[in-house]
């Protein structure tokens, strides 16, 4: 079991007011943590700290107790705009992290084909990136992130650019990826429903400065993994009740305190 920890982390972008303040958070690699909060509350900043794209002004970010100083293969990032490489076909995009680590071509293609199967795109290996739909691209992006066998998958609005229908299908897909990959997930999303459906734990960030105002365990996604339909889960009164509570929390974060 691995862990990703924020210990008293503060961040400012050089301006006087900090963007994140005194963040304490531990994420285990069997967790699916969803981060929600108003626009500008610092969700992306938090994720970028975890990825190592940013370094904290105060405190530290660590994986298994070792401080994070730069991005590395144990924390793979999935972006909203897939960030795939159009000069590579789907297979070589997925094999890209392996190529960086000197894995021979036959071996990395084998891994890529296995991952393509895993993300539901068997036979799409030779496709050019621009021949894929948005949903397919995001699947390739996730397969690519899985290729380096990360301890944590960091995702910033990975489904944000998809239409509603594709998005729902991709939510179930993400659940499957998380359950099978053994990687911990940190997911930033604007959708409370998505957070409730996917996460084992929801973190609410409040803005100015960004602080964690709620940390709520949830378990609706487990039910989906046990073959309950997404629709019946989302209609569940308990689901609705939490949805309302989180909505209130986000819109009135100044008065509420950590749950």
């Amino acid at each position, binding site marked *: 079991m691995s862990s990703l920890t924020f210990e008293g982390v503060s961040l400012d972008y050089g301006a006087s007011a900090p963007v994140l303040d005194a963040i304490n958070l531990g994420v285990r690699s069997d967790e699916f943590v969803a981060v929600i909060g108003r626009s500008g509350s610092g969700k992306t900043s938090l994720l970028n700290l975890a990825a190592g794209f940013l370094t904290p002004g105060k405190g530290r970010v660590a994986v298994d107790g070792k401080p994070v100083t730069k991005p590395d293969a144990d924390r793979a990032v999935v*972006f909203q705009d897939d*960030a795939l490489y159009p000069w590579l076909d789907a297979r070589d995009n997925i094999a890209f992290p392996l190529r960086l680590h000197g894995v021979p071509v036959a071996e990395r293609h084998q891994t890529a084909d296995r991952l393509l199967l895993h993300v539901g795109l068997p036979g799409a290996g030779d496709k050019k990136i621009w021949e894929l739909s948005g949903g397919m691209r995001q699947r390739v992006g996730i397969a690519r992130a899985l290729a380096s066998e990360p301890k944590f998958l960091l995702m910033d609005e990975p489904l944000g650019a998809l239409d509603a229908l594709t998005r729902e299908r991709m939510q179930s897909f993400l659940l499957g990826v998380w359950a099978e990959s053994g990687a911990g997930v940190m997911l930033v999303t604007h959708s409370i429903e998505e957070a409730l459906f996917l996460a084992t734990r929801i973190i609410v960030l409040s803005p100015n400065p960004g602080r964690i105002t709620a940390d709520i365990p949830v378990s609706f996604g487990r039910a989906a993994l046990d073959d309950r339909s997404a629709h019946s889960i989302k209609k569940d009164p308990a689901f609705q009740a939490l949805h309302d509570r989180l909505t209130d929390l986000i819109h009135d974060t100044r008065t509420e305190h950590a749950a």
Partner: protein
Amino acid sequence: MTLPMETPAPAGAIAKADNSGAKTGLATPTTLISVGTVAVLITGWWMLSFYQVVSPVFLPSPLTVAASLGNLATTGFVDSTLAQHTLASLLRIFAALLASVAIGIPVGLAIASSHVGKGIFDPVVEFLRPLPPLAYLPLIIIWVGIGETSKVVVISLAMLPAIILSTVAGVKSVSRDRINAARSFGATPIQVLRHVTLPSALPSILTGIRIALGAGWSTLVAAELVAATRGLGFMIQAAAQFLVTDVVIGGILAIAVIAFLLETVARLIERRFVPWGSRL
């Protein structure tokens, strides 16, 4: 496959977007009109010479020019055939292209990725860019002599700004996410440069090379007018001195055709190596 596919943009739409409807080779209305224009121009030219409106010394008929092009190809003019003149010119162009790519891309990378690089090279580029190459040709001849080197140097200098600036633009427009993705898979800075930055900048660099070829070609011809013993520019200059107007016009046509072919080849290379172009 159950997920809906995104249909690729039709080739026509892309061609129109970058203003080159003719490159698809289809008989679009624009191409037809262009063919008509050329036909009218040649007919007009032919009538001017046929009715002796202009003396043949100044304007030989299209047929005379065609015949002289045939002559140029077989027996040649001023000691070399048309092919030899053309080859001499092309060799200079490609030597210069090689040199300016070898210098321009690293310099562009340096400008785009470091303040020091920008500080060093920016003034040089800004100094060079607005200068007409023929203005510094005499200086180059004083420095390196009148041989091949001076011409290749001048053409390289004429090509450099386009290649440097397009490299800078290409590198600056690389998406942060693409770079960060590679870093999060453990890429070293060198790997990011090699596997992400350069391929991302390639479309822009190739456009720069195409522009550079254009600039280089016109500089080349002009440079050969001044100082050469072989080459299309030299051939025209020599012919003009003897008032062999048909060879002058034939040479001009040859220059135009080669410029057009260079452009076409450059476009083919672009489509072959960056088929995603502006799509992603």
